[in-house]
């Protein structure tokens, strides 16, 4: 018995190399590398088109899925555009930093005027404007609503003020702060105040908005992954018999996976295109009121939309998100489908 087994094994060993050579010889004869590459490419093209055709054959279902993806993508994209616009507006204000020099009470109007002239002649200063205590009082009375209180005072409590506007080339935070410190040392100056705090605050708020947008975008991207994953799962289920046959006649896992990965990519891309359309509609809808608002502020502000690069990035991102969503489920689902 043992001897018999040994003989048989020996027989197998003797035959094995010869048989293997035959098989390899046959394979080499069948297809060259170049043929295989060409066939691989053409198969990819065919699978890509076929999976797109399958989506277009069920337009209602495809549209619905794409819209869900589109809404999930359009929300963070809109926030992103909003932030870009806020930054564009506030960068126009960056040069608007001003230094208010509050003069000591004993500085006369003539002294103040000569100080103003000397400051205006300095390097890095665009202009300097003198506001006398009387003029300041008039303005304060008009804008503050404390007119009645002011009437009860014996004298004008407001100091003289010189408003210094730095040159635009010198408008960086450091340069302006340096100028402020220099001016504060002048003997006539009581206090030099830099009006930049609100700008920094705005920047902080914008940064917060950016992070919130990223977080929201991240969560919605995970949502898109789940939507596409689920859709692909259903697609796999509906093509179960095909998968079985392909595996039975020697299809590799990569071969079986391919159409579903393309399907995921197409879903993502359709969603991206729909999101782009939604955003463009929204921008178009807002354009007119924003133009009117901008005119009323005598600003030449124009709403920034999605540029060519941004649009391409959105589509590419959406397509790849679809691919990833499909890839995440396909492996697990396909392993479960084995011919038996």
């Amino acid at each position: 018995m043992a001897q018999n087994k040994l003989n048989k094994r020996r027989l197998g060993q003797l035959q094995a190399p010869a048989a293997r050579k035959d098989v390899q010889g046959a394979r080499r004869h069948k297809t060259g590398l170049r043929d295989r590459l060409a066939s691989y490419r053409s198969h990819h093209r065919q699978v890509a088109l076929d999976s797109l055709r399958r989506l277009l054959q069920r337009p209602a279902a495809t549209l619905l899925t794409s819209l869900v993806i589109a809404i999930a993508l359009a929300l963070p994209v809109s926030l992103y555009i909003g932030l870009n616009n806020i930054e564009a507006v506030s960068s126009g204000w960056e040069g608007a930093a001003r230094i208010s020099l509050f003069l000591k009470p004993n500085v006369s109007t003539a002294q103040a005027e000569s100080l103003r002239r000397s400051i205006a002649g300095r390097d890095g200063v665009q202009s300097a404007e003198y506001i006398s205590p009387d003029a300041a009082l008039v303005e304060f009375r008009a804008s503050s609503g404390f007119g009645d209180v002011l009437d009860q005072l014996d004298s004008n409590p407001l100091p003289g003020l010189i408003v210094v506007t730095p040159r635009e080339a010198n408008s960086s935070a450091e340069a302006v702060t340096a100028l402020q410190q220099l001016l504060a040392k002048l003997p006539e100056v009581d206090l030099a105040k830099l009006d930049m705090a609100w700008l920094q605050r705005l920047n902080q708020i914008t940064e917060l908005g950016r992070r919130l947008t990223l977080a929201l975008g991240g969560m919605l991207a995970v949502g898109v992954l789940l939507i596409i994953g689920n859709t692909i799962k259903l697609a796999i289920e509906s093509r179960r018999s095909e998968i079985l046959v392909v595996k039975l006649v020697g299809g590799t896992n990569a071969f079986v996976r391919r159409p579903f990965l393309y399907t995921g990519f197409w879903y993502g891309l359709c969603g991206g295109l729909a999101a782009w359309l939604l955003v463009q509609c929204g921008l178009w809808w807002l354009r007119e009121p924003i133009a009117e608002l901008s005119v009323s502020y005598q600003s030449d502000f124009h709403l920034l939309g999605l540029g060519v690069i941004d649009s391409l990035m959105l589509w590419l991102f959406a397509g790849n998100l679809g691919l990833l969503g499909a890839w995440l489920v396909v492996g697990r689902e396909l392993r479960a489908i084995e011919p038996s």
Partner: protein
Amino acid sequence: MIQFDQVSKRYEGGYEALSDVSFHIPRGEMRFLTGHSGAGKSTLLKLIMVMERASSGQVIVGGRNLSKLAVRHIPEVRREVGVVFQNHQLLFDRSVYDNVALPLIIAGYGHRDVGRRVRAALDKVGLLDKERKNPITLSGGEQQRVGIARAVVNKPALLLADEPTGNLDPQLSAEIMHLFEQFKQVGVTVLIASHDLALIARMPYRLLTLRKGRLITAGGADNGPE
């Protein structure tokens, strides 16, 4: 071509479908695999196609030891074995042509090669004029022949068939068997599982007979009736 060495297959739950089965089918020979349903015929074929793995013993096909085969190499084995299924396993969402072309596309043949080989295979089974039809519109015998065309289109060295004449009338069955004989004549190793004993008896090939998972007659490597 096919060698089984003391192969056993136990399913989960302890049911033993094959017990200590050993046989050898040399290259280019034709064998029938018979036995009652439940005797282990399907299990034996599944072991050759690596749809199942042996619990013990060795299955060697075309020089490859399937017991030690890594999962990623399974597709290669299946590409080298043509299989005719009892229930045809055709896809009804595409034409006869596309069904037969499937193994070639999987193996990465070029467009022109595919056309040539598919038509040659369809011509061989006499269905050249049906290539554009959907297989669902064909009769049972024709569907079976589409399945045979798909099994041989890749020119495999080994052809397996699981009850290929199961639902066919005697004349059609004989035609199908004749087709398999033609493949044997061009050097293909053929193994056909069938319980159609009347049909098998008329053909001059050795039998592998299974009873309750054990081989009771086996075609050896020696010169069988040819």
